[in-house]
């Protein structure tokens, strides 16, 4: 997966089975990284693997050899606690050596439990405190417009993150300024750190919320790579509006005994559980 054949607009030309295979390998890596580092948030990372695979392998106009290219599309992992999936995606996509993932969350490593500023090639922003990524993305999108660059900005938020007021400040801002080179993707797995997200805050109806804030909002199966690619490729969609993608996901997706079990927000897999997970993912 290191050397991708890039088409002229710098997206990979991979078919669905290849994308699914990458997603499985990344999931296996995340389970292993959590076990080795004893770093939590595995469920949150597994939840959005397919979104990152769709973005990094089929949607984003990026070149791993030129991570600072002013023309590049920007992907912001606003739900910074899923750092492991960002790091694994960037590594497998060729931004830095896969071996670097072994240092994840180890003392002295550049790869911490939340992404730091420019901590590794391809990391666009430091995140970890929720509600920051979308405002940052709006600034990037406005800068692109001011500088006459046609890049797009994608910000991935968690559903729990939508508790933060700053998300809704940003939600009101973008349509007022006619920003259309930005999309928000909500990884809607229905859980936040300590409970069901809809029981903690009145989150739903989430798509309608974004729609009523002036975004072109849609819902997709957040584990259907074809749907994800298709909807993300439509940014900008010509309507003059920003796009909100509510991606229905399963926390812990891909490992049966982690799926929809919120204990895996914090739990660390044992060696046996890593093996079981790898078995289920067809990696053994």
């Amino acid at each position, binding site marked *: 997966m290191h050397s991708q054949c890039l088409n002229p607009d710098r997206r990979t030309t991979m078919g669905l089975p290849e994308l699914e295979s990458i997603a499985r390998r990344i999931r296996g890596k995340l389970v292993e990284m959590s076990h080795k580092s004893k770093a939590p948030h595995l469920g949150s990372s597994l939840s959005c693997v397919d979104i990152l695979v769709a973005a990094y392998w089929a949607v984003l106009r990026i070149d791993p050899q030129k991570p600072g290219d002013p023309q590049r599309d920007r992907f912001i992992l606003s739900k910074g606690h899923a750092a492991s999936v960002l790091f694994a995606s960037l590594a497998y996509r060729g931004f830095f050596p896969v071996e670097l993932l072994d240092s994840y969350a180890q003392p002295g490593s550049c790869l911490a439990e939340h992404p730091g500023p420019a901590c590794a090639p391809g990391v666009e922003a430091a995140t970890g405190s929720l509600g920051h990524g979308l*405002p*940052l993305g*709006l*600034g990037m999108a406005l800068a692109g417009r001011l500088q006459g660059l046609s890049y797009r900005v994608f910000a991935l938020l968690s559903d729990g993150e939508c508790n933060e007021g*700053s998300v809704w*400040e940003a939600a009101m*801002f973008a349509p007022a300024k006619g920003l259309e080179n930005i999309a928000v993707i909500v990884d809607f797995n229905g859980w936040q750190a300590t409970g069901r997200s809809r029981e903690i805050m009145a989150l739903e109806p989430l798509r309608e919320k974004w729609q009523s804030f002036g975004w072109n909002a849609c819902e997709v199966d957040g584990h259907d790579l074809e749907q994800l690619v298709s909807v993300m490729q439509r940014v900008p969609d010509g309507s003059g509006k920003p796009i909100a993608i509510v991606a229905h996901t399963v926390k812990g997706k891909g490992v049966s005994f982690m799926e929809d079990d919120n204990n895996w927000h914090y739990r660390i897999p044992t060696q046996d559980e890593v093996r079981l997970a790898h078995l289920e993912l067809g990696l053994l």
Partner: protein
Amino acid sequence: MRNAFAAELAELASKDTRIVLLSGDIGNRLFDVYKERFAERFFNCGVAEANMTGIAAGMALCGLRPITYTITPFNTIRCLEQIKIDICYHNLPVTIVGVGSGLSYAGLGVTHHSCEDIAFLRALPRMTVICPGDALEVRQALRAALSHEGPVFLRLGKKNEPVVHKQAFNFQIGKAIMVRPGTQVCLLSTGNMLPVAVQAAEELGRQGISAAVASFHTVKPLDEEFLLNTFAQFKAVVTVEEHSIIGGFGSSIAEWQIDHGPQAARLCRVGTADEFLHEAGGQDYARQYFNLTTDSIAKKVRRFLEAPIA
């Protein structure tokens, strides 16, 4: 100060297309000239300062030089975490311009007082804190801030404050400016208290005490060379600020003094007390309440000089 800021900004924006002004729904008419000339580089971000701060950081990540502008409490401590993470952690050239600092808008009540902002912002790594002493310093401070490679907080007063500098001066971030000579006591003033500090020094002069005054516009980083000389030359050093004595300019000088061994001079701090002002009344009234007037400062300094050293 704010008119000087708006005028200087329009001038700088004509030379540097990276400059973008973000306003938190404030500055009615103030930016008419700027907006007319650079409409595409002005964004009213509404009453949503956390978002405004994040947007500024996002722009700076893409090579622009944004300014966030609103009343000091709102683009400082209200969105402190955005400043810490989005701006400082990324070490971005964003200039946070707070207007109505200290007690400038005292009449609007405690919600609009800003006597804690220096304490919070100077605690953030990479942050530069500049409190210009008059309109002329505002212009030069803005110029310096916009060419600085990192975060800057520019703490402004309101409008029509007296201009203190009578002659040309050299403004550099982190370099205090001596504005009045003296031999016994040195008043280090930061921000909009400069005219009051000068008047207090004149009053002390009439009472036979020779008081120097410096505009210590940069609270972070401190002008250490200036401090070493001042603490060696004078019997007493007095800090003057329209900010709480907890955590502000005076605190930073006290910290410096502790860290730099025994000094010849004793230190006295003038600032607002650790309390809210619950009464109505404008800046003059609020300054009386907090003993920040010419007379109360002169009196405090005289008593400090007369007090026996334990």
